[in-house]
């Protein structure tokens, strides 16, 4: 049955952890867009949700950092962070081990992957799940793309991973939803937290939502770091979704800069063809 839903959204920990400190109008607009995305995912009746995320040294460290890792566990747990700090209670999240294994095997025809049978989700996955699967009853397959520090995979590899994932999904009978979570520009764990480069964000979103492969792959890491911050490298998760939806355009459902959340809060959905 292949892919039944694809989209991207933000995941910054302030979205849930500092909710009461945000401008209510901006916050509620973003929360409503996340609710709309939840409805759209539910309407697509997925058997599983693949979350392409950029974790933040929760499971993987520089002693053994995979470029791309896919979860292959029967269940996961999160958040790994302090529940009060993140504003999300700890939950067990179901996985789908056999489907993970099938997808990993298929993707590895094109892209080398690491896999993990243990995984504690950090805010990069838990914040989206908090809104999108609030009952934590939809099986999740996590993907981590290293966006925390170089050496990073080239953007074309993130795109190719998305294409390979799409091909793997198309070979399966299950209904599979995929989201990418991250960025866009942000400097969250720095003295400049709250800085958001809206112009750069909107230009990137234009390229994403028109699925302009050449433009997306033309970003250089040095420029991303300068214009989008340390966490701007998380555009890899969005670009992977662009690869998974190659040839498809998308719709922007929300972009609202919320400084206390440290990011331009984004919800966008690709129109699958």
């Amino acid at each position, binding site marked *: 049955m292949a892919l039944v839903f694809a989209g991207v959204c933000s995941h910054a920990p*302030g979205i849930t952890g*500092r909710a009461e400190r945000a401008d209510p109008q901006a916050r509620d607009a973003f929360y409503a867009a996340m609710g709309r995305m939840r409805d759209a995912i539910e309407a697509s009746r997925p058997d599983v949700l693949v979350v392409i995320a950029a974790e*933040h*040294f*929760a*499971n993987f*460290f*520089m*002693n053994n950092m995979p470029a791309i890792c896919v979860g292959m566990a029967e269940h996961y747990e999160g958040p*790994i*962070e*302090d529940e009060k*700090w993140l504003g999300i209670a700890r939950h067990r999240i179901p996985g789908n081990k056999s489907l993970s294994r099938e997808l990993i095997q298929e993707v590895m025809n094109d892209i080398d992957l690491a896999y993990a049978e243990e995984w*504690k989700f950090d805010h990069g996955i838990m914040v989206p799940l908090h809104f999108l699967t609030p009952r934590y009853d939809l099986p999740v397959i996590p993907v981590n793309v290293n966006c*925390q*520090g170089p050496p990073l995979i080239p953007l074309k590899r993130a795109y190719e991973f998305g294409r390979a994932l799409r091909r793997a999904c198309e070979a399966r009978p299950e209904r599979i939803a995929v989201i990418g979570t991250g960025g866009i520009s942000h400097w*969250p*764990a*720095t*003295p400049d*937290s709250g800085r958001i480069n809206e112009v750069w964000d909107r230009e990137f979103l234009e390229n994403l939502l028109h699925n302009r492969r050449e433009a997306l792959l033309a970003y250089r890491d040095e420029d991303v*770091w*300068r214009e989008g911050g*340390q966490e701007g490298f998380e555009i890899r998760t969005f670009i992977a979704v662009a690869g998974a939806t190659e040839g498809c355009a998308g719709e922007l459902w929300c972009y609202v800069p919320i400084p206390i959340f440290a990011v331009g809060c984004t919800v966008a959905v690709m129109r699958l063809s």
Partner: protein
Amino acid sequence: MSLYYTQKLLYQINRDPATRRRLEEDFEGLLAEYELTQKERAALRKPDIGLLYVMGVNGQILMHYAALRGYEWNAYLEAMREGERSYGPVRTGLYTRADSR
């Protein structure tokens, strides 16, 4: 490699409840297991969040250690700013200032 081990210790503290218990019960013993300089040990012990930031500890690692040691969000941001004022710009890694490269 010392910055690497500073970050590795913080990574373990952030993710592992048993390591957090050791922080409370046997901090010196925990510190002794990592290849750290005297300055790094002192910064971790105090904690001097600003100095750890200036040393180049990745913000995604330092953020949780600051919270664990009782820094509210604004206090954590201010500690990093104070670190830059007291010790100068971040010395290495992704968190150096673009204008200091």
